Every structure is written in structure tokens, then in C-alpha cells.
């Protein structure tokens, strides 16, 4: 009993030591540069064999650990093993030598938790029609298919924000002829399925948890241009030489109502270059050499990232409202899988579409909280405690109606086959030499090779009286057949969607959606064909409806963005200003926004907010967390209001 636990602890000790080697300081918000992703135990739907679920889970985790063969910019740890070890240490059960390990010193808490939900697993038989070149005939090959539907979600431990929510299908098949009969065939199909799952896991979270680095020095400078710079975290965030990093200059940080807004501008690009040395972490400047040198020498913080500017979890603030996703209602009593598909697709779109709303997780909140508590107990350098995002809204969704129908469609095909002679010919002429002709199959659009009768005794009856010199065309018989072609399915659903305010319990948005979706699956004599076509129809329906739901919700929210500073002034007052909304605020280049001053009016002894329109502006540049606007009118009044510390915002007109 003790031996496996010792192994777990030793392996963890190694993992955490490995992790700590790369934690070479903290990011601008105090987090370790090399993020730790804790993989939770997979949530397995009832009926799925435990062994299969375990294999799927391991394959996915292995995929996460390997970034296309490169070293990923994050560390993956198994939270189940870790918590077992922590529990063990807490109980004081392990042997004396284990207690003396530097486990606690080395342990780094996870910044992110990932959970895989294994929603479904099916093992079936599929078939393909394959043309055999050698034997000149179309053979039907049956094979084993293993398929699964999975959901991976990545949650930020500090804030409980959902950074990624991904629902995907994976499948694996046997490849040999008629490989579907034995247990080994099933095992092979599952192995292929696991390979695909591993491939999906590979790189799935890379862009989300890539981390960031800062420029600590200019290594080579020539005539005021930075040619090479040194990063504090180089090899970790850039796995490949050719991958560039964007350089953002944090021009100024604004604090408004206790919240931080970084006005950052992209000023250049760097990459590893030929002279790159791991120990030095020197990067070549590809773009913006002059600007990088100027900003660095002026003491500006320069942040380098593989993707965009680290917004999201790196900027915990009230800048955005958040929404909790909960289990949806199912008045229609639709199958659990259907409900799951709808919920997952809606959640996936919500997490991918981060305009205006952050998505917070409450399904695995207990596990997130457990991780935080563990980090508080250890000597971890993680700074995770106490900055959770509370949810401003709930999404209340009820599947009111659900119906599906599928029909098996048939097709008519015309097959050709050689005709047997009606009678023996009396001619002494030899039959034409055996050859292969190409005959187009009417209606099918295919060419099928047929073989002429190989015997000398057989001749084409239609040419029996023809002169012997002319080679007779092959005699064929056309047979028309009606065969099953495909399953066509249609799914209909009606759902009501309400956005409920947590603060007040009010319904902020409500709408009903009546949708239908279609799905087609080729007929393969597989028992899952019909079910798959119906699922495909519902999946298409759910995809359409989720797009509409998020677009409608975003339209219903009318945010206001604070005017942070005046950049340029003229005789007309404020000419160019900086506002708090950035890349995820729903702004577009050239968009016109209203300038409003929020004042309070007293009506019958009660105070109410009033939005007084004082002018109009045009968005001219959208930066990560801020935007630049050109004042069209009301510049003078705006300047006066700002000088008087008035509350001035802009909003979409």
C-alpha cells in the first residue's frame, strides 16, 4: 500500500521541482510565468466502462503535455494524485523519509484547473464500399468504430472564470479487412480513438495559458534601434524558433473606481533568431526596433506574449460583468444527451465569445475552492486567494419542446453485368480477346470496370450475326436496384432563455427560440446511423440557436465606458480621448458613440441617475483594454466636465 503512494509522492516531488525550475519570477500581476494546469478527474457519464474512461482521460492529458513534440509553455499536473499526496501528508501517514522531503517548499499551486467530461462512448460497426483494384470488384468492408463525445473546460483558479469550454467528438476505427469481430478489433478501435483524443488535447489550451514575459534589457542596440532584447522568461513561452512574440508597451495605468486599466499599445515583434541562447534568453527584434528602444529607455513596461495582450484572468476587475452557467431545465423531458449537447454548445460559444461578459463556473466550483485551500496550506507562491469573480447574472434556459424524426432515404442505382449467352454460336470465328472496357453507369456518375466473358464459347448475342472482322462490343445487362442511401433527420426544439440579475433577481433579457436543424448520415448498416443523424440534426440546431442567443444577449446589454483621459486638445476643447473599453467591448473601428454625463436628479425626494448627452465621438483605435476616440462634437463641454471631475462616459448611440 505504501509503495505506490511513495512513488506518487516521488513523482510529484519531481514534477513540482521541475515546475519550480521554470518559475523564474512573477508576471506583472504576481503570477508565476510558467502556468500550472491541474487536471482533475474526468467526469464520466453513466454506462461508460471505467477502463475506457481511464484510457481516454490519460490520452487527453498526454495530449496536453505534448505541444506538437515541443515543450509546452505550461506544466500539467494530475490533481487527483496531488490531492491524495496532500491528504496523506496532512494525516502524517507516510514514512519518516517522506515527511522530510522538500515537497512543501517545491509545490506550486495550479493556476488553472482542467476537467474532461466524457459524455458518451459508443462501440459499433461501420462499413465502407471499397473498390478492389486487383480483383476488380467492389467489396464491402466492415470495421469496428469507437466514438466518444467529450467536453474539456479550463477554469482559472483565482477568479473561477471559464477560459475555455470545448465540446468535441472523436472516433477511431480498425483498418484491416473485416476487423470487427473480435475483442482485439474493439481494442484497436479504442486505441485509435485514444490517439485522436490525444491529438485533440495537443495544443488545445496553448493559446489560453501561454503566459507572458517582460523585456529586461536591450542586448544589442544600434543607432537608437533595439536589435536584440533579453526576456525574463524566453524559452518557456516560445516553443519554436519561428514563433514570434508581440511586444506591447504599457503606456499608462489608470485606476478608476478601484479598478485598473492598462493603456497598452502593440509596438513590435520579436522572435528567437539565429543567435538565441537559452541561458541568455536573447530575442531578435523583427519589427518596431526604434519604438522598443525608445520605450525601454523611457522605463515603459514592455510585455511580450505569443497571443494577444493578457487580458482576461490577468486583469481581474469589474470591467466586465460575469455570467454563471448552470444546469439547464428540461421541461420537454428530452434525453439527457440532447440536453448536454445544448448546454455544452451554448457554454462553448459563451466562452469563445468573450465580448462584454465573462463566464464563471459554478459546476466545478467546489474543486476550484479545494485547490485554493490547498494552496493556502502549502508554501506555494501562487497568489490565488480571494479574487474570485462573483456572478452578476444567471442564464436561465428551459428546453420547452423537443422532437426529432428521421427517415431512411433510398436511392436507385443501375448496375451493369455481363450477359450470359442465350445459346451457343455456330460461328467458327474466334471470340474477341478478353479485355476490360469502361462503361459509364447511367445516373450514378461513376465508372465501373467490367470484364468481358473470358470464355471462347461466349459471344455477344447482339453481334452473333455480325462480320467476324469487327470486334464486338461487350454485352451487358443493366439492373436497376433500390438500395438504402442515407438517414435524413430533422430536430425541432423550442427553448426559453432568460438572463437573471443575481443582485436584484430581475429578468434583464428574455426571449424564446423555435428552431429546427437537419442532419444526414450515410446508411452504413450500423445500429447507430439513425441515432447519429438525429444527434447531428440537434447539434446543428443547437449551434444555430446558441449563436442567436449570444448575439441577442449582447445586444440587450448597453454598457457605458468611462472617459479616462484627454490625449489631444484644440481650440474646440478635447479633440482625442481615451476610453476604458478595449478589444472585448464590442467596439468597431469608426463606430460612433454618444458622450454622456451621469448626473443625479431628485424626483419627489428620491435620487435618480440621469444620462445627459453632451456630445458625440468616433472610435479611431481599439487597444487591448482601452480605445482612442475622436470627438466629433461637444469637445469644449467635455473638457469642462472632465476638469470638474464629472462622471463622463460614452455609450453606443
Amino acid at each position, binding site marked *: 500500500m505504501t509503495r505506490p503512494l511513495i512513488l506518487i509522492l516521488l513523482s510529484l516531488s519531481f514534477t513540482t521541482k521541475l515546475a519550480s525550475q521554470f518559475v523564474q519570477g512573477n508576471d506583472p500581476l504576481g503570477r508565476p510565468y510558467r502556468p500550472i494546469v491541474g487536471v482533475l478527474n474526468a467526469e464520466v457519464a453513466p454506462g461508460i466502462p471505467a477502463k475506457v474512461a481511464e484510457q481516454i482521460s490519460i490520452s487527453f492529458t498526454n495530449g496536453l503535455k505534448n505541444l506538437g513534440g515541443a515543450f509546452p509553455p505550461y506544466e500539467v499536473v494530475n490533481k487527483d494524485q496531488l490531492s491524495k499526496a496532500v491528504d496523506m501528508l496532512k494525516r502524517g501517514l507516510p514514512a519518516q523519509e517522506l515527511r522530510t522531503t522538500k515537497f512543501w517548499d517545491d509545490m506550486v499551486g495550479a493556476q488553472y484547473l482542467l476537467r474532461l467530461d466524457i459524455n458518451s462512448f459508443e462501440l459499433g460497426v461501420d462499413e465502407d464500399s471499397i473498390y478492389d483494384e486487383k480483383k476488380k470488384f467492389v467489396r464491402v468492408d466492415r470495421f469496428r468504430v469507437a466514438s466518444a463525445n467529450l467536453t474539456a473546460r479550463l477554469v482559472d483558479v483565482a477568479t473561477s472564470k471559464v477560459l475555455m469550454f470545448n465540446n468535441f467528438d472523436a472516433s477511431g476505427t480498425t483498418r484491416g479487412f473485416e476487423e470487427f469481430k473480435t475483442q482485439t478489433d474493439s481494442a484497436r478501435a479504442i486505441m485509435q480513438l485514444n490517439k485522436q483524443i490525444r491529438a485533440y488535447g495537443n495544443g488545445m489550451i496553448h493559446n489560453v495559458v501561454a503566459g507572458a514575459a517582460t523585456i529586461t534589457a536591450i542586448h544589442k542596440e544600434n543607432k537608437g534601434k533595439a536589435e536584440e532584447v533579453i526576456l525574463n522568461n524566453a524559452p518557456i513561452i516560445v516553443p519554436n524558433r519561428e514563433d514570434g512574440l508581440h511586444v506591447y508597451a504599457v503606456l499608462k495605468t489608470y485606476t478608476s473606481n478601484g479598478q485598473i486599466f492598462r493603456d497598452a499599445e502593440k509596438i513590435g515583434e520579436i522572435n528567437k533568431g539565429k543567435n538565441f541562447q537559452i541561458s541568455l534568453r536573447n530575442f531578435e527584434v523583427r519589427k518596431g526596433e526604434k519604438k522598443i528602444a525608445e520605450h525601454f529607455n523611457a522605463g515603459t513596461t514592455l510585455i511580450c506574449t505569443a497571443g494577444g495582450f493578457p487580458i482576461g484572468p490577468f486583469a481581474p476587475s469589474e470591467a466586465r460583468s460575469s455570467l454563471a452557467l448552470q444546469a439547464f431545465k428540461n421541461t420537454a423531458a428530452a434525453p439527457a444527451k440532447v440536453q448536454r449537447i445544448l448546454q455544452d454548445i451554448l457554454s462553448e460559444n459563451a466562452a469563445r465569445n468573450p465580448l462584454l461578459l465573462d463566464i464563471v463556473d459554478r459546476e466545478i466550483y467546489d474543486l476550484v475552492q479545494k485547490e485554493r485551500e490547498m494552496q493556502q496550506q502549502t508554501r506555494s507562491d501562487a497568489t490565488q486567494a480571494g479574487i474570485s469573480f462573483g456572478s452578476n447574472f444567471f442564464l436561465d434556459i428551459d428546453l420547452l419542446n423537443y422532437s426529432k424524426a428521421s427517415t431512411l432515404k433510398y436511392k436507385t442505382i443501375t448496375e451493369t453485368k455481363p450477359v450470359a449467352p442465350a445459346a451457343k454460336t455456330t460461328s467458327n470465328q474466334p471470340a474477341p480477346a478478353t479485355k476490360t472496357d469502361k462503361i459509364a453507369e447511367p445516373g450514378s456518375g461513376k465508372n465501373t470496370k467490367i470484364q468481358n466473358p473470358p470464355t471462347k464459347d461466349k459471344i455477344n448475342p447482339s453481334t452473333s450475326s455480325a462480320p467476324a472482322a469487327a470486334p464486338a462490343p461487350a454485352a451487358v445487362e443493366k439492373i436497376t436496384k433500390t438500395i438504402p442511401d442515407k438517414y435524413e433527420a430533422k430536430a425541432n426544439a423550442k427553448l426559453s432563455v432568460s438572463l437573471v440579475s443575481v*443582485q436584484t433577481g430581475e*429578468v434583464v433579457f428574455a426571449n424564446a427560440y423555435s428552431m429546427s436543424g437537419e442532419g444526414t448520415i450515410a446508411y452504413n448498416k450500423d445500429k447507430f446511423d439513425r441515432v447519429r443523424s438525429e444527434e447531428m440534426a440537434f447539434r446543428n440546431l443547437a449551434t444555430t440557436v446558441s449563436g442567436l442567443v449570444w448575439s441577442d444577449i449582447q445586444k440587450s446589454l448597453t*454598457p457605458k465606458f468611462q472617459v479616462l483621459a484627454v490625449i489631444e486638445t484644440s481650440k474646440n476643447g478635447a479633440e482625442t480621448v481615451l476610453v476604458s473599453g478595449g478589444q472585448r467591448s464590442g467596439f468597431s473601428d469608426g463606430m460612433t458613440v454618444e458622450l454622456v454625463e451621469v448626473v443625479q436628479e431628485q424626483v419627489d425626494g428620491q435620487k435618480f*441617475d440621469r444620462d445627459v448627452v453632451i456630445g458625440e465621438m468616433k472610435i479611431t483605435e481599439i487597444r487591448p483594454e482601452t480605445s482612442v476616440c475622436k470627438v466629433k462634437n461637444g469637445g469644449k463641454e467635455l473638457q469642462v466636465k472632465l476638469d470638474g471631475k464629472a462622471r463622463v462616459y460614452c455609450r453606443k448611440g
Partner: protein
Amino acid sequence: MLLFAAQSLLAQNSKTSIWVAPLESDKPSAMTFSKEARSEIVESFVKFGSFSVVDREATQLVQQELELQKSEAFMDGKVVEQGKAVGAEFIAKGYYHSKEGKFVLKIVDVSTGNTIETDEYKMDFFAANYRKHLRKMVYRIANRWLSGAKITVMRSLEDKGESTQRVLLAGGSGKGLKVGTMLEVFIIELEEIDGESLERFAAIGKMKVDRVENANFANAKVRSGEKEIFRHFAANKKLYCRIVQN
């Protein structure tokens, strides 16, 4: 700083709050549609824009979340204000009389228990377009309800000589005002009838809404009675208006 208007208004909201109760019927089989019909009524009230529709179905979830936000994990994080739940001033109650094929929607005042508005429509719950009829019912009720409400005319925003051109109204989208809404301006005079003092709404002009600032305030352009309105403002008399055409 980005604020959701919806949120910022919640604390200082002049909208009428309403809860849509579960629908009832004398025929249990008709109740299969009740959830759908109710969601349509909720949706219609929300879309009308003048009401705060409160949800009582998600109360448990809301409470759980509020409790969660009191915990240490949210100490330096982001939380909503506690104790700001909106209570319903009115309840919308729907009843389907299956024998008559009639759906009746009533608005009940929570403080008095009185039914203040009612509307009915002959409809078949099994008909495809019943949702459309429900929506029309809600809109009819809402328009009647709001048109009776008096809105305070706060002050003049623009004067020309001794006539008022534009005014500020203490009512916006929360009172059902839209750009183009026609309003009647009136003063309240007390009339003595049989020894009893009764209020009389004496019309003095007409206005048209030309800007809705938010749920609480709007601006209107005076179409008639400019001088009369100016005089009343100058005399510090209270002016009101009500919707005549929306």
C-alpha cells in the same frame, strides 16, 4: 470603467416591478403549455421595456450565488451588492378557461390585493399562433396601464422669450416613453363636489418625446401651450404629463 446600464439602473429604478405567476387552468391537459405561455408573457413584459420582471424560479440559485459571494474567496474579488433584491409591486396572473376557450390575464396590486388591469382573449392553446395573441394581450395591458400614469415634468430645458420649447421629464423608457410618444401636459386642480375635494387634470398643452435619456428621464419638445407651460414653471407650479399616443 464599463458599466452595464441594466445594473446601474437597478439600484435606482423607476420601472414598475412585476412577477408573472405560474398560469392556471381548469383543464390539466392545457397546462402542458403553461410553461411556454408563461415564458411568452415574461418575455413580452421584458421586451416592452417599462417593467422590471422579477424571477422567482431562480431564487434558490440566486441565493446560493449571493451566499457564495460572501465567502472569503471573493474578499478582494468582484461581488454584487447584497440586499438589493427587487420586490414585486404587481403580480400578473393568467387563467385559461378551457370550456370557453378563453385566456384571462390580470394584474394584481401586491399592496392592496386589487386587480388593476385585466384583459382576455379567446384563444386555443393548441393553435400555432397563440404566443402572438399572448404578446398582444400583454402590450394592450401595458399601454393602458402606463397611459394612465402621470409623469412629472421637471423643468424647462430650453426657453424662447416667454415660451417653453423643451422640457425634462421624470420618466424614460421605464415609463414606456419612446422617441415620438405624444404627451398631454396638465396641471392638477382641486374641484369641490358635494363637499368633497376631487383632483381634476386640466390640460394646458401637448408635447412629443424627442430623446429618451435612460429608464428614468426623457426630453420632450413642446407642441402646444408653450406660454402656459412657461408661466406655470415661473410660478413654481407642478406640471405633469401623460401618454396620449405611443
